[in-house]
C-alpha cells in the first residue's frame, strides 16, 4: 500500500517532469472569436449571457463555436451562473444582458414588478416518449406511480419552482394527496448517491443522472412536465425591460442570432452533444445518451401561461403574472 503510494508519487513527479503540460483552458474555437483584433471582421458587440453548466447549454456552446452569433455581429461571453437565482440579480445590475433560465424565475420576478422579460424560448420538454427529466426511485422502494409519492420525501434541485409544482399536480391527478409530500433540495449530480444513502425516497432528475438510476434497476415514476403541461418550456431567454428600452438594436440582434442558433442546434444534435462533452468534461458516451430537449425560439406552445395558472392553483404565487409584460416574443 505504502509502496504503491510512493510509486504513485514518483510516477506523478516523473510525469510532471517528463511530459509537456496540457492546457484545458486553451480555446480550440478561439480562431473564430479572436480574429476581431485585425478589424476586418468589423466591430463585434460583446454580450454577457448567463447560462447554467448543464447539458441543455450545449446548444449555445455549439452555436457559438459554429460562428452563428458572430455573423450577427455579436461576441457572446457565457457566464456560468450557479442556479437561476443568481441570474436575475445579475441582470438587474446590468452586469449581464441576457440569461438562459427556467421560466419560473421570471414568473416570480414579475410578481415583484422587477421589469424582467422573457424575449424568447430556448428549450422545451418533450410532449411524448422519454422526457428530459423524471421522478425516479430505487427499484425496491415500492414507489411505482405518482400517487405513491404522497407522504414520501422527494428531492428537487430548487424548491418552489416548476419541479415540485408539476410533481404536486401529477400526484393530485393520480389520486394522491400532494400536501403530504415532503420536498427536499438535492442538487442533480448528488441524486444517485443521496438516493442510495436513503436521504429521500424519490428524486427529480434529468439525464445523465436519471439514466444512471434507471440503468441500475431504478424506477421512472413519473415525468412531471409531460404529465401536467406536455412540452413545457425548460429554459427561456430572459432580459430586462430596461435593456429593451435602452438598446433595442442589441435585443433585436441577439434575438435573431439566438433564433437561428436554436434552429441550427435542433438540426445538429451531434455538434450539440460534442459541445456538451467538451464543455462539461464528461465522456462522449455519456453525452451521447442524454435526452435532448426541443431547441426553439418560439414561445407558442411553451406552456408558460399554464405554468402560471398552476402556480396560482397551488398558491406558489398570489396572482397570475401580467403576461403582456412578461412574455414579449421578439
Amino acid at each position, binding site marked *: *500500500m*505504502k509502496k*504503491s*503510494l510512493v510509486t*504513485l508519487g514518483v*510516477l*506523478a513527479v516523473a*510525469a*510532471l517532469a517528463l*511530459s509537456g*503540460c*496540457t*492546457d*484545458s*483552458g*486553451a480555446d480550440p474555437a478561439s480562431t473564430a472569436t479572436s480574429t476581431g483584433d485585425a478589424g476586418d471582421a468589423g466591430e463585434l458587440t460583446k454580450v454577457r449571457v*448567463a447560462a447554467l*453548466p*448543464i447539458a441543455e447549454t450545449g446548444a449555445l456552446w455549439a452555436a457559438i463555436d459554429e460562428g452563428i452569433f458572430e455573423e450577427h455581429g455579436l461576441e457572446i461571453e457565457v*457566464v*456560468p*451562473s*450557479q442556479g437561476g*437565482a*443568481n441570474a436575475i*440579480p*445579475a441582470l*438587474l*445590475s*446590468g*452586469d*449581464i444582458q441576457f440569461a438562459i433560465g427556467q421560466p419560473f424565475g421570471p414568473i416570480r420576478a414579475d410578481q415583484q414588478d422587477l421589469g424582467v422579460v422573457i424575449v424568447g424560448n430556448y428549450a422545451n420538454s418533450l410532449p411524448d416518449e422519454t422526457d428530459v427529466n423524471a421522478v425516479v426511485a430505487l427499484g425496491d422502494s415500492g414507489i411505482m406511480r405518482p400517487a405513491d409519492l404522497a407522504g414520501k420525501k422527494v428531492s428537487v434541485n430548487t424548491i418552489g419552482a416548476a419541479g415540485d409544482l408539476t410533481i404536486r399536480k401529477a400526484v393530485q391527478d393520480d389520486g394522491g394527496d400532494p400536501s403530504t409530500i415532503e420536498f427536499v433540495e438535492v*442538487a*442533480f*449530480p*448528488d441524486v*444517485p*448517491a443521496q438516493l*442510495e444513502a436513503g436521504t429521500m425516497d424519490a428524486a427529480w432528475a434529468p439525464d*445523465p*443522472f436519471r439514466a444512471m438510476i434507471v440503468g441500475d434497476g431504478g424506477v421512472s415514476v413519473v415525468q412531471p412536465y409531460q404529465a401536467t403541461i406536455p412540452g413545457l418550456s425548460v429554459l427561456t431567454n430572459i432580459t430586462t425591460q430596461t435593456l429593451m428600452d435602452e438598446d433595442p438594436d442589441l435585443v433585436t440582434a441577439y434575438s435573431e442570432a439566438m433564433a437561428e442558433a436554436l434552429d441550427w442546434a435542433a438540426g445538429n444534435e451531434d455538434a450539440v452533444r460534442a459541445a456538451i462533452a467538451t464543455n*462539461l*468534461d*464528461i465522456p462522449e458516451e455519456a453525452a451521447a445518451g442524454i435526452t435532448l430537449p426541443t431547441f426553439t425560439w418560439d414561445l407558442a406552445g411553451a406552456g408558460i401561461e399554464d405554468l402560471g395558472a398552476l402556480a396560482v392553483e397551488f398558491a406558489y404565487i398570489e396572482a397570475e403574472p401580467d403576461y403582456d409584460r412578461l412574455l414579449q416574443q421578439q
Partner: protein
Amino acid sequence: MATVDAPLIVAAPPPPRSVRRSRTLRKFALGVAGILGFLLTWQLLPTLGIVDPRYFPAATTTLAELGQQMRDLEFWRNVGRTMTAWGIGLVIATVLAVVLGTVIGLVPFLRRATHTTVEFLRPIPSVALIPLAILLFGLRIESALVIIVYASFWQVFIQVLYGVADVDTVARDTARSFGLSRGSRIVNLVFPTALPYLMTGLRLAAAVALILAITAEMFIGNPGLGREIVFAQSAGDWPAVYALVIVTGVLGLIINLVFRAIERRSLAWHQSVRGEEVL
C-alpha cells in the same frame, strides 16, 4: 562553597543537540505516520466497499486525478485566480480595518458611538450578502471581493480596536509626563501594543478570506478553484471534486504556515510568541 560574584540565577543548559534532533525527528515521523494512516484509511473505505467507490473515490484514484490536474496549465491559472481574489480582498480589508480601527479605537467617543452598530453588523454571515453583492456588481470578481472583504474586515478591525485600547496606563502616563507628541505616542506606544493583536487578526483574516474566496467562486461563479469544484460536481466527476478540495485544504495550510511565520518574525520581542504544532 559559593563565591559572591556567582550569578544568583543559573540558566538551565539547553538540552544536548542529539536529544533535540531526535525530538524533531520523532515529531516529523509522527506527522508522516499520521498522514499515511489517514491515506490508508481513505484507501480502505471504498476498497472494502464500506462506502460506494463511485461517490467516494479511493485515495490513489484521487491523487492520480490531482496529478492530472497539476499538469494542466488551466489548473494553475485557477489557483492564481483564487489567490488573486484572496490577496486583493485581504489587503483591502486589512487597510480599511487598520485605519478605521485605529481612529475609532483611539477616540473613546467614537468607540461608544459605533459599538452597537459594530456588534450588530459583525455576526452577519458574509455569504448572506451574496445576493446583494450580485445586485451591486453582477457575476464578477467585485462581487466576490465584497464578501471576502466583509468577512475579513471584522477579524482585523476588532483586534485593532482592542489592541489600541490596551495601552498600559503606567506607560501612557509616563509618555505624557515626558511630553511625547501625539504622533510619537502612536509610534512608540500604541503601535507596539496593538501589533500582536493586529497579527492575530491578520492570521485569522487570511484564513477567512480564503474560505470566502472559494465560497464566492462556488456561488457567484467568478473563475477559480471554487467554480471548478462546482463544474466537476455538475459533471459528476467525483475524483476531480475531491482532488480540488485537497488543493484548497493545502492552500489553507500554506497560508496558515506563512502567516504564523510572519507573526513570529514580527513579534520575536513579544512574550506571547511560542511554538505551536502545525502538522
